[in-house]
């Protein structure tokens, strides 16, 4: 009889000392297609780390390599310092929460949660105790004897989480775990997941295509595109200082205005206007760049302050969102700007600008990013 031997590691309660995961030049090819292209990554213990990107960017393949379901074509994967590329999933001290939950329909909730502990030959009374604890953690203590088919989507999600966490893995892998839930429940689970992660102190690697989800839950985010990591950093960093056009466009809405570098600190845009902007040192005159300004950084008419770059345009659309209103302004020559206007305590956002109105728009030069 084969035996799954796994060394259990207790998560350090203070978290954060040492490295949970390290990827070195990890590449995964399927035939001619390169799904993951030589990525390097280091995730410290106790971190809530997100892999964010559109479908097909390689985030799920990366997660599956961490779980052991895919073997990297090249590169090394270190789990708590030990290389694991050739270790099968059942000998890795990681557990996964599947997108489809993958609960065992022939077992009740308690037996689903106990599955991993039983395979590891944990003593029976300890299994009972840990299963109870795990179900309490996800507030499902009363449903231990239910079949998964009798539970709601949100409850199934919790069972899947408890089934993975009960094993106290070194790293918990989550593959778009909230994707099947409706918006309200998803928001609620985001908060809960984050709380649970703080409580248990286990390293979470969270795969999602939802940028809002990643921004609100993560300690750090790796934005992936075409099999590589475009940018890796804290949520504020990737949002405020995207290092390339893809990141700026993928995270949040961003205005992109094409222009040509005229000289240090000056870019000429399509309308012919010269704009003062923080041109990076490695850009030469004549380079084509994208100017990126977040919609919430754009001021309209009386909001414009001294020192702002100003332009005029015409309102072409206005979309009311309740808490704010999205206004699209045409600057001429095909250049558009999207501005988000907050509803404030003095004004509701929809009563100020009408379609067709001539408006002045402006932004502070430091709120503009120059991306190549």
């Amino acid at each position, binding site marked *: 009889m084969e035996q799954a031997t796994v060394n259990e590691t207790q998560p350090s309660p203070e978290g954060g000392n040492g490295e949970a995961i390290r990827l070195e030049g990890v590449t995964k090819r399927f035939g001619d297609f390169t799904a993951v292209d030589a990525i390097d990554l280091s995730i410290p213990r106790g971190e809530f780390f997100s892999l964010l990107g559109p479908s097909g960017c390689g985030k799920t393949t990366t997660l599956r390599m961490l*779980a052991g379901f895919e073997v990297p074509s090249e590169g090394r994967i270190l789990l708590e310092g030990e290389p694991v590329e050739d270790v*099968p999933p059942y000998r890795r001290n990681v557990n996964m929460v599947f997108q489809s939950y993958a609960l065992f329909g022939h077992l009740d909730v308690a037996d689903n949660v106990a599955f991993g502990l039983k*395979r590891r030959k944990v003593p029976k009374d300890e299994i009972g105790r840990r299963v109870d604890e795990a179900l309490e953690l996800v507030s499902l203590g009363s449903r231990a004897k239910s079949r998964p088919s009798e539970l709601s989507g949100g409850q199934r999600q919790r069972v899947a989480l408890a089934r993975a966490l009960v094993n106290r893995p070194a790293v918990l892998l989550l593959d778009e775990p909230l994707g099947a839930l409706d918006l309200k429940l998803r928001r609620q689970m985001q908060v809960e997941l984050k709380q649970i992660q703080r409580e248990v102190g286990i390293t979470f690697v969270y795969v999602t295509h939802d940028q809002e989800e990643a921004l609100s839950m993560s300690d750090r985010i790796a934005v992936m595109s075409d099999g590589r990591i475009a940018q890796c950093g804290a949520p504020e960093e990737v949002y405020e200082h995207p290092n390339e056009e893809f990141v700026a466009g993928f995270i949040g809405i961003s205005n992109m205005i094409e222009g040509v570098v005229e000289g240090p600190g000056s870019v000429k845009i399509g309308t012919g206007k010269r704009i003062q902007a923080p041109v990076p040192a490695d850009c030469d005159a004549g380079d084509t760049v994208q100017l990126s300004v977040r919609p919430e950084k754009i001021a309209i008419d009386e909001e414009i302050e001294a020192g702002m770059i100003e332009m005029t345009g015409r309102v072409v659309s206005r979309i009311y969102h309740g808490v704010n209103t999205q206004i699209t302004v045409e600057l001429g020559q095909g250049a558009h700007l999207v501005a988000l206007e907050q509803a404030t305590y003095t004004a509701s956002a929809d009563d100020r600008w009408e379609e067709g109105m001539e408006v002045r728009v402006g932004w502070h030069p430091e709120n503009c990013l120059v991306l190549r």
Partner: protein
Amino acid sequence: MPGVAGDVSSKGFWSRFLLPGGVWLLLLFVVPICLVLALSFGYTDDLGRAVYSFGLENYQDAFDPLYIPVLLRSIGFAVATAAFCLLLGYPIAYYIARYGGRRKHILIALLVIPFFVNYLVRTYAWVALLADEGLVNSALKDLGLTETGIQFVNTPYAVVGGLVYGYLVFMILPIYASLERMDGSLIEAGKDLFGTPSRVFMHVTLPQTKQGILAGCVLVFLPAVGDFVSAQLLGGPDTYMVGNLIQDQFFAASNWPFGSALTVVMMLFLSIWMLGYLRSAAREARDPVAAGGV
């Protein structure tokens, strides 16, 4: 209450098309069975003709201890057949369902095509292969592996072998279907939760495909109990099965009433098994998610 089958008028529409099939079944299926049932209470006169009556003698004869070995042998052969079909068929179904890829449908077709050839004809082919002077024995002699040849025919092994060959596909298809329905991430979840491949098979795959296994066993066991072809062609006096006993009443012994009584007993016996299976299947149908992943 609006049903999925449609409204009242479409129910009437479809009822009309039920008529030809209904009449066909009534005349050619229900009536003959009633004749068999009626005949089972009759007797054979001195000239060997079947006469309808109301006697229970045939049923008394059917439960004669003389036939108990025949019945037990039939059940034994059928159980062995179902067991071998399961052991042979599960890996085949598993391979095709999990690793068949684009060739899945071709592989299934290759399995089914031999079964377009009549069972009797295929069993004759086995006789030609396994006879004392058959192809297998002459090959073995030519290779010098045996001097006298090995006796295959007239043994229980040949009869069960013929039955396995005859019914294997009925085991493979339902198991294949249940494996196809199963969510592959369940197997990954099993491995992720420290299950070695053999443990995952025992604790996840097998329970998840229980309905397919059960259906396959019923589809193999029931016809195998009543089979007479394999025992007649590949067996001898020691492999005599219930099917052969019934067949002989109609042809060799010309005792149709007794043959009919045996048939009725047999049908009732098999119906009990069938009902058991249907009840279990209905239980799963009420709770469909219990059979699959969530």
